[in-house]
């Protein structure tokens, strides 16, 4: 029963962390793309071109491995708990 409680609340806590980190990571990437475009805009650049550039960059980001690495938020604590259980309970 205590194990179920740990799993349920652990899952909720890790999900909050996962969502926060993915939002943060996307926000940083978007800001980076905006700054990159603004630093060296092509000839006759307008808002539509800027939006398209950022949308393209975000699609590239979504298809890259970086957002998938945030899934480690779930993996690392499970590994850590397993290691602690093993270390503490062996003589």
């Amino acid at each position, binding site marked *: 029963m205590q194990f179920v409680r740990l799993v349920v609340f652990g899952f909720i806590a890790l999900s909050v962390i996962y969502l926060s*980190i993915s939002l*943060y990571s996307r926000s*940083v990437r978007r*800001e980076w793309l905006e700054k990159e475009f603004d630093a060296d805009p092509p000839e006759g650049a307008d808002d539509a071109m800027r939006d398209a550039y950022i949308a393209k960059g975000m699609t590239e980001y979504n298809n890259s491995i970086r957002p998938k690495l945030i899934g480690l938020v779930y993996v690392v604590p499970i590994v850590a*708990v397993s290691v*602690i*259980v093993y270390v*503490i*309970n062996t*003589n």
Partner: protein
Amino acid sequence: MRKIKITLRVLALLIFGLLFHYVLPQHDVVKITSTEIIRTDFSALNRIFYAQADSGATEQPTRDLRLINTQKQKTFLLGFIPRDVSTVMVYRNEDTGWIWPPYFKFDSSDLQAEAANLAKGDEWVVITHYGWRIRWASIYPNAIAVRTVPGPDVSIIPWFNIVFFVFLMVAILFIRAMWRQFRERSIDPLLDTAGHHVDEVQAGMAERKGRISRWLGTWRKKDNTRTPSE
């Protein structure tokens, strides 16, 4: 306002400091003298300083508690400075199971057997534990593990605590970076828009005021050199 801020910060630091001091593992150099089991009736005061019935067993208001009696080397500064003085220390030996604090300890019986074995000899051991000994409320630190050492003057490096505090610093800096990003990208634009509206309203009022004072100025004497803007 400043004083309240400082007070709150000191209070937060104190609470977290006490929490970490209670929960993080510490190492004592001891000689185990005996082990025993006592019947324990918990009170509302000291119940939170105990864990639970053995993992897999059911919780009762009263239960047996494993204790490890030792002769402990005294130290200064959380064990960093050794001393040549010894005292007695009693540890409880309870399963933490899947509950707080997260030691995931299920082997209390094994640890008790080890302690009983060591109590026969005269060996020095390092006992890893968390918690406090509070005598007036019958509260004991919880022993986690024992290992034998050659002598009382061993130097123990608290690896887990080092890793823990490094991780904590990284986590705090990361949360700060996240918060700043959130403020810069989500809150500030909203405030800017709101501030812009306020500016427009204020500019409109100033404009109307200006018109009225200019109109009043037309009624003043012609030799008055003051301009309406003054």
